[in-house]
């Protein structure tokens, strides 16, 4: 048992922070008692420090003992007794350590203050009619957003820290009584096993949570809005909220989730079904149309109707590129344009799209470098990609693969590719959920929220694609 010496303790802690410039310490003496304060001023609320700690201490009539300070003097909410070994952890999480001479323990007062932004509508998941709040970088705000939506004692949030240096807070969220505990346990185990220097964004965890780590296909759901996460929790999934990231991860994940959009749930279900069917067609078009066009042009012109063949042959006659090179060229152009418009400031981005569309498209055709059908096919496939923005990176890769397959092997190559990728996806088992459910294997109950969505009043059971304890959602 050792008693603290304020000056020595302060200098020791300072040393542990390698004399960083934002570590601040202060000695305070009153009525023979010596107090020492040490904190990181970059993450501590200075005003609160003055009002909740300094002012009460200087004006108090009580003697400055640990007990009085904790119970009578300090006007802060979160005060904990800490050992010397916990000082560093507490300081980096925004607490002010109050060391009292001759006491065994010190006090840590949480005065953390980060710059935070207010919840706003995320750019990737806008809705026409529906809640517009999105997650922010602050984990506390995100947790409160979740609590607001599921105001139940059964909403469980378990916190842990990952990252040797970043010490990032990660909260595993689920609804007790709905979510299968085995999934929660599996997630916890996987997260505990992570020995990494830092977690900068939630995406860092995706690779660790996926069952098939090297897969092109993401096996973890990502949501930017609390209403989406709340609905997923109600389906029996586990959400992982990561500090400093506005993206919340959910597992288990099936591919079809990305084809569902929060808009679908805030509008007429007939319309939703129609839009989902369009989305489905669009995504298939996005993946195979360029490759198929190439295959038809290079190998199977005989199955093209004569009028189409005439148009294609007329427009491609005299072009300097062969069809394969032409499609690769247009493909590359579109991808460059996309990347440029993504990085440039919005006012310049608009200019780039105009230049891209007008100069590269129109002039390219007029100059006889590329053919109009080629531009249309690639443009359609590139636009259709964004029907499901969450899948855009994977679909872009698939597009490229199918262009190579279609161009090199023809239609047989495309069919082979489709079957291979379906087999590959069918092998993926995300926390016990078949990746292509509810269509492969067909799960009759889940078809109610498949391409053809049913009315919410008819969706009585939770999805069977995910393991959950409580099947009934509507009594």
């Amino acid at each position, binding site marked *: 048992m050792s008693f603290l010496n304020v000056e020595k303790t302060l200098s020791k802690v300072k040393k542990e922070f390698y004399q960083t410039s934002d570590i601040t310490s202060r000695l305070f003496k009153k009525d023979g008692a010596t107090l020492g304060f040490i904190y990181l001023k970059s993450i501590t609320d200075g005003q609160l420090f003055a009002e909740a700690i300094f002012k009460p201490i200087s004006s108090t009539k009580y003697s400055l003992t640990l007990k009085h300070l904790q119970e009578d003097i300090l006007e802060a909410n979160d005060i904990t007794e800490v050992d010397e070994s916990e000082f560093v952890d507490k300081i980096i999480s925004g607490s002010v350590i109050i060391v009292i001479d001759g006491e065994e323990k010190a006090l840590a007062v949480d005065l953390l203050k980060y710059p935070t932004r207010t919840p706003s509508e995320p750019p990737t998941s806008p809705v026409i009619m529906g809640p517009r709040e999105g997650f922010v970088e602050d984990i506390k705000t995100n947790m409160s957003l979740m609590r607001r939506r599921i105001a139940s004692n059964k909403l469980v949030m378990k916190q842990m820290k990952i990252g040797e240096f970043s010490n990032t807070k990660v909260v595993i969220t689920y609804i007790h009584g709905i979510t299968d505990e085995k999934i929660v346990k599996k997630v916890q185990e996987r997260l505990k096993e992570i020995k990494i220097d830092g977690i900068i964004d939630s995406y860092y965890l995706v690779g660790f949570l996926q069952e098939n780590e090297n897969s092109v296909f993401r096996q973890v759901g990502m949501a930017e809005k609390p209403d989406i996460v709340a609905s997923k929790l109600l389906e029996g999934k586990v959400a992982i909220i990561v500090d400093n990231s506005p993206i919340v991860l959910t597992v288990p994940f099936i591919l079809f989730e990305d084809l569902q959009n929060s808009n679908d749930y805030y509008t007429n279900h007939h319309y939703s079904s129609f839009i989902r069917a369009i989305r489905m067609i669009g995504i298939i078009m996005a993946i195979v149309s360029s490759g198929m066009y190439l295959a038809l042009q290079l*190998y199977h012109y005989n199955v093209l109707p004569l009028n189409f063949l005439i148009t294609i042959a007329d427009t491609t006659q005299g072009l300097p590129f062969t069809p394969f090179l032409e499609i690769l060229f247009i493909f590359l152009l579109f991808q460059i344009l996309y990347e440029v418009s993504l990085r440039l400031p919005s006012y310049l981005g608009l200019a780039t799209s105009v230049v891209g569309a007008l100069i590269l498209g129109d002039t390219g055709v007029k100059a006889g470098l590329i053919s109009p059908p080629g531009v249309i096919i690639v443009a359609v496939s590139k636009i259709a990609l964004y029907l499901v923005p969450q899948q855009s990176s994977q679909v872009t890769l698939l597009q490229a693969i199918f262009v190579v397959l279609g161009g090199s092997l023809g239609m*047989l190559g495309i*069919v*082979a590719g489709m079957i291979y990728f379906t087999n590959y996806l069918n092998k993926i088992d995300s926390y016990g959920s078949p990746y*292509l459910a509810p269509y492969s294997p067909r799960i009759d109950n889940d078809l109610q929220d498949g391409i053809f969505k049913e009315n919410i009043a008819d969706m009585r059971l939770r999805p069977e694609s995910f393991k959950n304890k409580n099947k009934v959602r509507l009594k």
Partner: protein
Amino acid sequence: MKDTTINARQTGMLCTIMILANKIFLLPALLYEGAKSDGFFIMIMLFAIELCVLGVFFLLKSKYPNNTLNFILEKHIGKFLSKIIYIVLMVFFLFKTLLAYSVVYAYLKAQVYQEEFALLALICIIPVVNHAVISGLRVFSRTIELYFYAICTGIFICLVVGLINSQGMPFFFRATPSEFFLTSFKHIFSFGDFIFLFLIIDKIKIEKKEYKTVFKFIVLGIAIVLILFYIFYSIYQITAFMHNSALTDILSVSLQFNAVGRLDVIAMVTIMFLSFFELTIFAFGFSEGFCNVFHKLNRTYSVVVFDVIFMCVYFILVGRYENMLLYNESWLPYLSLFANYLIPILLFVIAILKRRRN
């Protein structure tokens, strides 16, 4: 251990794919050549026999719900004979694959690629089939489940267009009994669809009440084949022997063909999907036999051995699909007799014996 079982619906779909295999491209023309339009009745007769084999399967499954075929055979006829049976089944499925591949290759060469594309076909088909077989029955059954209705829709479109253009009834009862039975015998190798089910008997998770589901898909498969035969014979009648790809040819003669675009692209894509699945099932049949003969070797070895034997036999023995057709009509029917009919009879006896003991 990972669950590798398949459900009743997936079993039914596998059955439908096997029923369609080797029957909707070349067989209608071959049967016409031998038995005129009465090829239609040959199909009915052989399907009836197939349904008996299916009955044997259901009986065996109800007697041995969780046992492997290997266990059942070894228990009753000993290790040596059961290995012989597996080897016969391996050869049976190898030649089934060869026949399916030769016919599809010939079709794609004539109608789709219009030139030799042996290497291209191999690099498209072999890796995908291998991957599917290694991934396991459950994985490719799920894939079949995803594309099943697309394939059915493709065939359905072909049938509807064919039906619109059909011209009355085909001339039936023109073949003599000897022509009829000889042609039936010559082409029994195209049957034997349900033998595969015996090989995977332990992997089929099915309750007695679900037999109906499997049966529904089988009826669908048989109905598709019979309707196609009927339409094909009613469209072409006398010239049916000239048309080597029934599914495509019932489209290409239609008035809609060329007018609204080349409709055969529908048949073309359907045939491609169907072929991949057929070849996967047959290759899996071989692999299953191999794994039971050589217990110590895993599925990857079976796939490698299959590839080597397949390519050697194809390039050395078969070469052209006409040679395969020659085998199909000469010695393969005898192999078929053994695999298609004798093995089910043996298993029927085994199932009956179990009932008596009980």
